[in-house]
């Protein structure tokens, strides 16, 4: 830097070169003079040329030119007549010229030699630098490789642990790539050639359309995939696979789907078991509800039976009259048939409540559910001296739901409300059932005028085994919650402005789970 900044000032090394030029030429002359004096030999020219060569080697072109000039000066001064003067005799001009040419030739030769030596040196330096760089890069690569191997090991371990495989699928050329775990998840031999055809052969026949549909969609330019399908292992057992992938482009024009395949069999099995347990629990709770409605049920069945008996007896009396009144007999028999049908309807309704059938989701008018629930609880309402009011929205949109399950929720909430008003004597025991809807959901509310909710209990109301009643099981509201949540809805309780509490649940018009 310094040299470049002060480039007009020769560098110390250059000065040394010039110094060396003066010294070496002077020394060469002195030695030659001494040799001339003592040994009578005359090695002037060769020694001077030697000194020039030395300077050229040591100091480069500048000093060597100085040395050549100095040597020419000494040559003229000490060796050419008249000696001791810088004048040149005409006869000696060729000698001087020859000497100058020779020295310049030596200078140029030396300079060329020096240049090539220098470029050789710089080439060597460059080479060394690249070797050092290569060594550094190599070291870094080695470190990265170790790191990558570790990451790969982690990834593989994670894939094994989570039963998740990664895969790639080149749409053009129909090439499928799988991670190691992928072969385990799909239960495919590692040496087997993977293709869409193989996948379609191994997917569960009932889910083949799902996979085919996704493949078609991808071929048509679909971007993301997210689906589930059942898969057959080589032994024929069923696995549930969840596939998520998205479209990528590593090479132009070669679209590829990259994603993950998760083996969710355990999750699905657990869900199924949970579902079955919940269904059994819900059924048990329905039975319990029926138990609490015992008096109502007996009455509901007994009432038409009493009608049948009395009508039958009256009919016999009309027949036994001196002039049998057949019209009256017919009327009595018609009423008997009607009552018998009514009794069997009651039994059918009750059987439906406890029947062990899997939940069936059908489009449902919640107002119907409310009306049926009220019909089942008619007697309970009377026994408890409840003033039952309804406020049902007209033209309620349909929800996709299981009739029996939701009937159970409404019955549970109504029975709850009635029980909350058991101790109420100073005001009407008003039970209000409301339905309403907006664009996204249908809401059913059951409002009582009972003892209300304790703030401390609010958070735990819907927990299993939480109850404020003596002899209560604490399952009712928790069952309600699991039913409502299974339908993609939610349930909540809130205190009224006046006495009592309101329990409400909302069901979405478009359950998200259904695709």
């Amino acid at each position, binding site marked *: 830097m310094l040299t470049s900044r002060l480039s007009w000032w020769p560098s110390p090394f250059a000065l040394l070169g010039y110094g060396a030029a003066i010294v070496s030429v002077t020394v060469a002359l002195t030695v030659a003079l001494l040799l001339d004096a003592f040994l009578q030999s005359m090695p002037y020219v060769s020694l001077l040329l030697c000194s020039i060569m030395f300077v050229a080697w040591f100091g480069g072109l500048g000093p060597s030119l100085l040395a050549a000039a100095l040597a020419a000066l000494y040559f003229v001064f000490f060796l050419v007549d008249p000696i001791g003067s810088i004048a040149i005799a005409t006869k000696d001009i060729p000698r001087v010229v020859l000497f100058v040419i020779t020295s310049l030739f030596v200078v140029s030769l030396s300079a060329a030699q020096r240049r090539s030596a220098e470029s050789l040196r710089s080439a060597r330096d460059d080479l060394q630098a690249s070797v050092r760089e290569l060594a550094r890069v190599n070291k870094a690569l080695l470190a990265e490789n170790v790191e990558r191997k570790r990451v790969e090991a982690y990834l593989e371990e994670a894939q094994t642990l989570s039963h998740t495989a990664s895969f790639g699928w080149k749409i053009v050329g129909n090439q499928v790539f799988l991670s190691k775990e992928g072969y385990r998840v799909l239960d495919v031999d590692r040496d087997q050639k993977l293709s869409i055809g193989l996948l379609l052969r191994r997917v569960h026949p009932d889910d083949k359309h799902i996979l085919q549909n996704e493949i078609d969609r991808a071929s048509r330019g679909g971007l993301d995939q997210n689906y589930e399908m059942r898969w057959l292992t080589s032994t024929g057992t069923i696995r549930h696979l969840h596939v998520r992938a998205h479209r990528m482009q590593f090479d132009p024009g070669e679209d590829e789907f990259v994603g993950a395949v998760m083996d969710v069999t355990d999750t699905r099995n657990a869900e199924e078991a949970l579902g079955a347990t919940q269904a059994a629990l819900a059924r048990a709770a329905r039975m319990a509800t029926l138990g609490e409605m015992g008096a109502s049920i007996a009455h509901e069945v007994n*009432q038409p039976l009493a*009608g049948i008996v*009395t*009508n039958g007896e009256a009919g016999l009396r009309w027949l036994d009259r001196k002039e049998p009144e057949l019209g009256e007999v017919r009327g009595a028999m018609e009423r008997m048939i009607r009552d018998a049908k009514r009794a069997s309807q009651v039994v059918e309704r009750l059987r439906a409540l406890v029947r062990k059938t899997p939940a069936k989701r059908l489009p449902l008018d919640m107002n119907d559910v409310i009306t049926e629930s009220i019909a089942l609880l008619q007697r309970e309402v009377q026994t408890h001296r409840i003033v039952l009011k309804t406020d049902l929205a007209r033209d309620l949109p349909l929800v996709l739901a299981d009739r029996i399950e939701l009937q159970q929720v409404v019955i549970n909430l109504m029975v709850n409300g009635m029980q909350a008003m058991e101790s109420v004597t100073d005001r009407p025991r008003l039970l209000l059932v409301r339905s309403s809807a907006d664009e996204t959901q249908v809401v059913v509310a059951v409002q009582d005028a009972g003892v209300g909710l304790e703030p401390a209990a609010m958070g735990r109301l819907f927990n299993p085994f939480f109850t404020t009643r003596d002899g209560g099981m604490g399952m009712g509201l928790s069952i309600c919650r699991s039913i409502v949540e299974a339908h993609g809805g939610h349930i909540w309780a809130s205190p009224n402005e006046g006495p009592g509490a309101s329990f409400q649940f909302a069901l979405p018009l478009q359950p998200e789970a259904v695709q």
Partner: protein
Amino acid sequence: MSRAPQPQVPVKAAPSVFVVDDDPSMREALDSLFRSVDLQVELFASAAEFLQHRRPDGASCLVLDIRLPGVSGLDFQAQLQKANIRIPIIFMTGHGDIPMSVRAMKAGAVDFLAKPFRDQDMLDAVAAALRRDEQAREAEKVAESLRASYELLTAREREVMALVTSGLMNKQVAAELGLSEITVKIHRGHAMRKMKARSLADLVRMAENLGLHPPKTR
């Protein structure tokens, strides 16, 4: 026998049965049953409906479901008693209503029948209830005419009647009222004639029936 001559007894309203039950099939069945034995029947779905209906003069009884919408059968029984409407009640009870039935009987119900009941039991109960109502109506009629006769008595005659029927001698009555024995005898004679009493014993029974008490002068 359809157009047989009417019984010569003075025209008397046919006995009627009132049925109050919120269950239509039970109402219709009872209607048929009672008509098959030539009873007049009126059907009501609620207690309020029955109260709005004007009751005829003849003997009647009420067949009442113990569980009714709005007001229970027992409360209705109490309401009727409070309103001084005396009508014999037969309760029909459903399943497991024994405690209510006991209360109903204690409150003066004629009978209670658990659904489903035997038709004969119901008809017997209704017959008994109608008989009871008939007797009550007779007694009421007698009491009515007694009260009418009693209205004719002067204040003094009433005093004399009350004291005489409480068991005092004429002399004691005279002393009690500060009258002469003769005057007492005259008042007593007037009272007996106006009350159509054949003997003193007759007059005593009438006083009892009217609920007379001797005036407390001391």
